[in-house]
C-alpha cells in the first residue's frame, strides 16, 4: 500500500513523499505531533493523514496483518518493495553481479581482508558511488564515513575517485542529452566530497557514542543512504581486557546498526581487519572480533589475494550464493578486470 493511494489532499501527499515516506508501514508508528513536526504542518492535518491510513488499508487489502502484530509486513509486500530498491554499485561489474546489483540498502555488510587489499578504497568508492544522481542510475544519496584513530580516509584520494567516477559517467551518457543538462551542476567532484559526512573517533567510547548519535543525525539528514565504519575493529582490539564485556558491547552495537539500516533504509558497511585463528592444527586467517561478531552482519565479503589478483568472496549472505569475483584498484578507484578502461554500466530499469 503506497502513500500515493492515500485519500488525502495532494499537498499533504507531496509533503509526505518529499520527506521520504513512501509506504504506509513507515507512517503507522508515528504520533500526530511527531508527524506534524516532521512535515511542518498543523497537528490537525497530521491527524487527518493518520486517520486516513487504517481506513485505506482495510478496504484495499484483505491480507493486512493488523490482527497479529501492528506493523508486520507480508513477504509479498516486501518482495515488491525490494524489487524497487536500487543498489550501490561497487564500481566493479563482476562484483556487482555476484552481489545481486551492488551493496543493498537495509542490510549490514561487513568487508574484511588483509592490510593493503583495498578495504578503504572500496569504502571511499562506495561513499562516492552512492551519490551518483538518480538520473544516471545511482541513488543520489549521501554518505557518513566514520574513521578510527588510524585515519585511513584520504580526502585527496576521495577527490580522485570522485573525478574518476564522473568521467566514467560522462563516457556512458552523451554530454548533450537532456538528463545531463539538468544535473550538470551536481556532477562536480567538490559536490561529491560535500556529500560525505566525516566523523573521526579516537576510542571505543567515542565509537559507541557516535553510533548512538547517528539516529539523531540521520533523522535530520534523511538523504544519507550509506554509513561506513572504517574500521569497526581497531579500538575494540586494543583497549579491552574483559572479552565477555566486549562481546556484549559489540552485540548491542550491531543491533543498533541493524536498526538504523532498516529504519532509515540505508546500507551499513563495516570494514574489518583480519586475525589468525588456530584450527585443525594450522593457523588460518579469519576476520577479527571473534565468533559471536561473525553473526552480527547480514552479509560478509572477504577480500583476498588470489596469486597476483585481488578477489572478493561472498562468505555469508541470506539471499546470495557464495561466489568470487576479481577486481582492480586503479587510479580511478575500484574497477572490474574486463572493463579496465571503460565501465559498461547498465542503467537499471
Amino acid at each position, binding site marked *: 500500500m503506497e502513500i500515493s493511494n492515500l485519500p488525502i489532499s495532494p499537498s499533504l501527499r507531496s509533503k509526505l513523499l518529499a520527506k521520504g515516506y513512501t509506504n504506509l508501514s513507515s507512517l503507522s508508528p508515528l504520533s500526530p505531533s511527531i508527524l506534524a513536526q516532521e512535515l511542518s504542518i498543523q497537528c490537525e492535518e497530521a491527524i487527518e493523514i493518520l486517520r486516513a491510513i487504517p481506513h485505506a488499508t482495510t478496504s484495499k487489502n484483505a491480507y493486512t496483518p493488523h490482527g497479529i502484530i501492528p506493523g508486520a509486513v507480508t*513477504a509479498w509486500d516486501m518482495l515488491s518493495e525490494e524489487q524497487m530498491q536500487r543498489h550501490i554499485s561497487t564500481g566493479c561489474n563482476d562484483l556487482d553481479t555476484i552481489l545481486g546489483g551492488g551493496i543493498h540498502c537495509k542490510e549490514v555488510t561487513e568487508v574484511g581482508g588483509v592490510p593493503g587489499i583495498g578495504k578503504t578504497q572500496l569504502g571511499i568508492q562506495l561513499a562516492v558511488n552512492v551519490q551518483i544522481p538518480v538520473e544516471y542510475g545511482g541513488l543520489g544519496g549521501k554518505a557518513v564515513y566514520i574513521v578510527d584513530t588510524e585515519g585511513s580516509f584520504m580526502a585527496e584520494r576521495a577527490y580522485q575517485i570522485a573525478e574518476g567516477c564522473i568521467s566514467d559517467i560522462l563516457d556512458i551518457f552523451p554530454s548533450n542529452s537532456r538528463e545531463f543538462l539538468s544535473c550538470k551542476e551536481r556532477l562536480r567532484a567538490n559536490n561529491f566530497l560535500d556529500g560525505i559526512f566525516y566523523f573521526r573517533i579516537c576510542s571505543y567510547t567515542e565509537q559507541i557514542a557516535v553510533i548512538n548519535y547517528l539516529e539523531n543525525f540521520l533523522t535530520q539528514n534523511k538523504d544519507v543512504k550509506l554509513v561506513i565504519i572504517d574500521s569497526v575493529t581497531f579500538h575494540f582490539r586494543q583497549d579491552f581486557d574483559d572479552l565477555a564485556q566486549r562481546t556484549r558491547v559489540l552485540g548491542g552495537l550491531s543491533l543498533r546498526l*541493524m536498526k538504523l539500516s532498516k529504519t532509515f533504509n540505508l546500507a551499513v558497511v563495516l570494514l574489518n581487519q583480519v586475525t589468525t585463528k588456530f584450527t585443525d592444527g594450522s593457523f588460518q586467517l579469519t576476520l577479527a572480533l571473534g565468533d559471536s561478531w561473525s553473526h552480527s552482519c*547480514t552479509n560478509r565479503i572477504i577480500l583476498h589475494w588470489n596469486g597476483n589478483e585481488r578477489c572478493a568472496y561472498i562468505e555469508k549472505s541470506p539471499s546470495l550464493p557464495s561466489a568470487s569475483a576479481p577486481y582492480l584498484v586503479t587510479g580511478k578507484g575500484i574497477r572490474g578486470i574486463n572493463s579496465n578502461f571503460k565501465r559498461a554500466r547498465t542503467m537499471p530499469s
Partner: protein
Amino acid sequence: MAAKAPLEEEDTKPQTLLLTGILSNTYRACINTAAPSTAQNPHVTEDFRLPWLTGMELLSDTNQNKHFLPTGLQGIDALLGGGLREGQMTEIVGPSSSGKTQVCLSSATYVVDKKFGAVLYLDTSNSFSPNRISRFVNQTHPSLPKEEKERRLQMIMSNIYCQSVFDIFSLLDLLHHVESTLKHTVKLGGSKLCLLIIDSVSSLIAPIIGGKNSQGWCMMASVGVLLKKIAYEHNISVLVTNHMVGGENGTLKPALGESWKCIPHVRLLLSCCIGANHSTATVLKHTLLASGRTANFVIHN
C-alpha cells in the same frame, strides 16, 4: 503420524483446552487479588484450579493438535521424526553461515506451501530475504505456467509475515501482543498462525546477559517461558536460531549458556563442511528421539 487438515483446526479443538486457557487466566487473576483470603476460604483455589488432564487426554490432545510441520528439507525432517512439532520450541544452533537462516526461510516457505497455516517471522539481523523465498517457491514447481506460478507465489508470500525486532523489550512486547491477539482472534489473514520463527534470538539476548546484572537472565527466562506458553496453548511451533561462541580449548559451543540450554525442547546443530555441497545436522537434544544422530541435507541455490 496424524494427517492434518489445518484450516478446520479451530473447530475441532477440544473444549477442555479452550477452557484451560480461560480458566488459567481467571485463576491467575484470583491468585493476584484474593491471595490473602484463600487461607480463610480454601474453596476459592478449589473452584478455580486448572482441570486435571489424564495421560489419555493428553495423548489424544497431542495426536490431534500437535502435528509435525515439515521443513521441506528431507534430512532434517527424518532426523526430527517429521519436522518441527507444534507446541514445542525447536532451536537451531550453528556457526556463522552454516545455513541457519536458510533452514528458517525454507521451512517458512514449505509450511505455507503445504497449507498448514500462516508464518510469523521475527527478524533481528535484517536477513529475511523475500527474494530468497520467491526462489524457494519457484524451484519446487518449475514447470507450472507463468500465471499459475505468480498466483502461487502471491498466495505463499502473503501468508508469511515479517517483523524486525532490534531489542529484547520490543521482543517481549511483541510476544505479549501475539499472545493476547491469539487468545481473541486465532486466524491471521484467513489462516491460522502455525509457525513462529525468531532469527536470531541470541543476538537479542547476548548483549544483556553476563556481567554483574542479573536482570538479563531474568528477561532471557521470560522470553523462553513466553515462547513455550504461546507454543503450547495455541499449538504453534516455535523455531529459534542461536549462534556459537568459542568455549574452552578452542571448540565452539552454543551461545547463551546452560540456563538457556534447558529451554528449547529440541536442539539441532548445523555444520557445513567446506568443499562439500551439503550441510550436516546433528540432534543435540530431543524430547522423543535419541540425540547424537546426524543427517545430511542440501539447500538448493
